[in-house]
């Protein structure tokens, strides 16, 4: 295949799009909106996961230690736990510190005085990222820590982790279904646009066919049209999501401040943005391919 023919088809596609700037703009906008919607939802879901991943106050596991556990054994266990999946931090709470915290937080000074000795065990408090692994794996991990010789008992409330993960999985699945439907919509939008271009250029197609043009020769400018519009729509969708993230950051900052925290919204990474453009270009190409293929089946029959 001669390069000059491909360049010729590319120029042909570009000129066709530029000759009808409004129609081209509307098609690109429609495609961009169709793409921005699922991408925006994926981004929102990603930010939600990041936010929940930081929700460590509620994702703690307490491992209560035997009173006769040696400091060396406790240190070894702590080191092992620190290297486990999803563990963000491990804090050692000595018996004395536990008692001090108890007295301070519960106002139980008098009761403790009656006991005469410290009844509280030392413990390891493990902070985890609740989304780093499945709830089943997390449960199994806690069970294995509970069986350690130095551990007397483990306390955790991980039911909410399972519920949270189920909700997120549901959201992810819903967004995927929406994305697939909208991708189909993008293909249909492009296919319809190209069908209109084909109708406008029917004479040209027929004449080219008469002088011996192959299907690929006739098809190529239309495929490039779909590709170019898909590329532009992908870039525009990326920009739309980026602008949405920027405009939401202010309200998020104010909301986070009310909870005494800080959260920075994350947009698409460069490789994700480029993947969006590539997928969009592919959808544009695919829509064109289907539309022009159907027409050529008729022309060459």
């Amino acid at each position, binding site marked *: 295949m*001669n390069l000059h023919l491909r360049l010729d088809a590319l120029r042909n596609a570009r000129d066709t799009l530029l000759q009808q700037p409004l129609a081209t703009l509307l098609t690109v906008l429609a495609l961009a909106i169709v793409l921005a919607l699922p991408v925006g939802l994926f981004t929102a879901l990603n930010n939600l996961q990041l936010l929940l991943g930081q929700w460590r106050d509620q994702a703690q596991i307490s491992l209560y230690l035997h009173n006769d556990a040696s400091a060396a054994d406790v240190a070894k266990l702590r080191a092992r736990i620190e290297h486990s999946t999803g563990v963000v931090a491990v804090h050692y709470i000595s018996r004395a510190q536990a008692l001090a915290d108890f007295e301070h937080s519960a106002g139980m000074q008098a009761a403790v005085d009656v006991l005469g000795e410290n009844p509280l065990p030392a413990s390891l408090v493990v902070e985890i990222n609740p989304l780093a692994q499945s709830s089943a794996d997390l449960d199994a991990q806690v069970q294995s820590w509970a069986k350690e010789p130095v551990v007397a008992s483990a306390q955790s409330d991980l039911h909410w982790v399972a519920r949270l993960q189920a909700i997120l999985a549901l959201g992810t699945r819903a967004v995927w279904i929406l994305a697939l439907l909208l991708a189909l919509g993008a293909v249909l939008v492009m296919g319809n646009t190209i069908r209109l271009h084909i109708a406008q250029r029917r004479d040209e197609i027929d*004449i080219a066919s008469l*002088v*011996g043009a*192959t299907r690929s020769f006739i098809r190529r400018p239309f495929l490039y049209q779909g590709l170019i519009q898909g590329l532009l729509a992908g870039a525009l969708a990326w920009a739309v999501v980026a602008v949405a993230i920027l405009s939401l950051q202010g309200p998020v900052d104010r909301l986070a401040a009310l909870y005494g925290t800080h959260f920075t919204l994350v947009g698409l990474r460069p490789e994700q943005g480029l993947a969006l453009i590539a997928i969009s270009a592919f959808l544009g190409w695919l829509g064109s391919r289907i539309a022009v293929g159907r027409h050529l089946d008729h022309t060459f029959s």
Partner: protein
Amino acid sequence: MIEFINVTKHYPGRRHVLREINLRLPKGEMVLLTGPSGAGKSTLLKLLTRLEDVSHGTLMVGGVDLATLKRRHIPAYRRRVGVVFQDHKLLMDRDVYNNVALTLKVAGVPARQIESRVRAALEKVGLGDRLRELPATLSGGEQQRVGIARAIVHTPEILLADEPTGNLDPALSDEILDLFRDFHRHGTTVLVATHDARQIARLGLPALHLEQGRLHAPKEFS
């Protein structure tokens, strides 16, 4: 060599357009295809360009059996044929140069050869100085000459013309048909469909006459 062997063409639910056509047209011949409107002249040319399939019989062109030619091989076959239409079939948004260059582009001719060949073809039809003009700015005769340049720019083995002078005045018609005779002198097989009695008489060429789908050909072509 163009060879029709018992070729019949009919459309579903309609009468036969061509009946039992038998014809042997040697390479390098120039013949006229005559007959009244509706006699089947255009259909016969459409069979030769593989725009229509034969219903029965065998149609061989340069060793290719058009009746069994696979769809994917049609473009390559069409690049061996040049076709001139009564209504020119030019791309009105492309200039003269690009209308003619289309034939070479679809044939995959290298870019560096296209310009010289297009210029040569347009020189032959007397339009060497009109390269960048749009068809709409040309007269009917000039548009037809662009169509002829497009049909011969790739030096086809066979040149087919369907009523090429139908919309032209007598002087222009003479010019156009003289062009065809010129290509014929250079070895191209030329088949011109016409019902112009004046031209038929003036040219004095062998004529194949179609009447109600039946072909009456001189003995040397039967």
